[in-house]
């Protein structure tokens, strides 16, 4: 018998033993779990816990920001969220500062190459939302260093 077969045979024995041990542990674990926590569904505590689990309302707005995506709450938000955040992150939308013409061109590019569906009437709503809330900034040929985090260097 080769070394490998021996290894296999001995490990199978260990394997079988462990399966038995673990099945026992699993069964007793479940029993203990149900004995201890089986009734908590009706407790007030449980309700609190459940709110944390279901605390993912996809439309929640806080301080004017759509929590799930980080986009500004303004007319056109819903259309933008529905059409622009299912394939890529909203971060990509917010970083890009473009005028209407370039947004339309970018949408055409996404339709041509990235499987974006036809947007119909929503296209104008989305582009309005983007140019109003994320307008392009003129940066010139080189910007001044901004947001310098000053610290003492010894």
């Amino acid at each position, binding site marked *: 018998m080769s070394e490998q077969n021996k290894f296999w045979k001995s490990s199978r024995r260990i*394997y079988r033993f*462990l399966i038995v041990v673990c099945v026992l542990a699993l069964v007793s674990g479940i029993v203990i*779990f149900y004995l201890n926590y089986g009734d908590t569904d009706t407790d007030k505590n449980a309700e609190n816990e459940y709110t944390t689990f279901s605390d993912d309302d996809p439309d929640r707005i806080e301080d004017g920001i759509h929590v799930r995506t980080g986009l500004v709450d303004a007319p056109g938000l819903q259309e933008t969220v529905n059409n622009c955040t299912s394939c890529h992150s909203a971060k*990509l939308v917010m*970083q890009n500062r473009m005028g209407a013409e370039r947004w339309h061109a970018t949408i055409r590019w996404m339709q041509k190459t990235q499987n974006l569906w036809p947007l119909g009437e929503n296209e104008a709503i989305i582009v309005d939302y983007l140019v109003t809330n994320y307008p*392009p*900034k003129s940066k010139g040929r080189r910007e001044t260093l901004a947001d310098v985090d000053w610290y003492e*260097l010894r």
Partner: protein
Amino acid sequence: MQRRKFVQKATLASMTALLGTDIVFGNTLPDHYLPLGLQDPDPFKMFNKNKEMVILNDKPWNIEAQAHLLDDKITPNSAMFIRNNGLVPEDLDATTWTLAFDGESVKQSKSYTIQELKSKFKTHTYQLTLECGGNGRSEFNPPANGNQWTIGAVSSAKWTGVRLRDVLEDVGVKPDAVYIGYHAADTHLSQNPNTEPISRGVPMSKAMQDETLLAFQMNGADIPLAHGYPLRLVAGGWPASVSGKWLNRISVRNIVHDGEKMDGDSYRVPCEPVAPGEEVEDEEMCIIESMPVKSLITYPKSGAMLKEGQSLNIRGHAWAGELEVAQMEYSIDFGATWKDCPIEKPVNRLAWQHFSAKIDFPKNGYYEVWARATDAKGVSQPMVLPGWNPKGYLNNACHRIAVKIG
């Protein structure tokens, strides 16, 4: 109920893990097999990144370094930028992984396991600089769309693998071959299995260079998942998008490879210079090849305040695509005067080079230290933005840090 189910699943999972992996298959399990929680909210932990790395995009993952995080001579994983075009593949197994060769210009289709690559061909290690073509995009005006990289989409790690050239010679390439194109295991954001997120390549001349590797190790260990485990094409000095991750197929083409992101505005710039914002026709765009000369001050971090009379030691790296950096200078007066500083030779071709200088400031006040590298052909970094292009590639403008004295 949700919670109960969760506990049961978790119990089962941990037991299966105990049984299946640690004991029986412990010796064959790939190091990188993780039941990937790719939706894990902490990408720093998931990818082992420094907490100061900046997330530009989480779908797909795009994460960049800051200059001071890149101070190491050899970039560790913790500071290496991630640029993904699609979704990170899951459940990768290096033991069964194969790399196929096909295309119009192979004499025969052939495929290799990683073990076969390792045993059949000689292994080489090179330190290779990989910079995203769009590094610096955020500075272009009018703005260019895409991930708004600042300065941190560059790395220079040690890559170990076999030469693509050696494998191509074993496969057999017809004389009409002009390009190789890679294919990989990542998936398109739309989840459409018929669309590749990215499939780029290089001309044969680049494919046949000594330093162009089919790499299975980075910095002496398995390649981290986000950087292409278990196999990556690495072609230093060119836009990093050429270095395909999760590599499973190479097509040897008798035309310029026409894969995803080889056309349109992707990784292409106007063949002739255009005015900022100008519309450029498709046929007037040319594929980016070597990256331009560039440098970074990696120490100190911008914002250092020094006492009157205290001198400042700076250091950093410089690189020049296919070329070597021949000269390094710095200025503390916005380019009115420049001082030379020593630049080390690269450890090998296509590795970045290191510079350092000791600076004394003439009087108290606000300064900026600007760094400027010049390549072997005498071409330097511009102080202002270089030529505008529709997608904002190739920004190699001088890096600078702010300093206050007194």
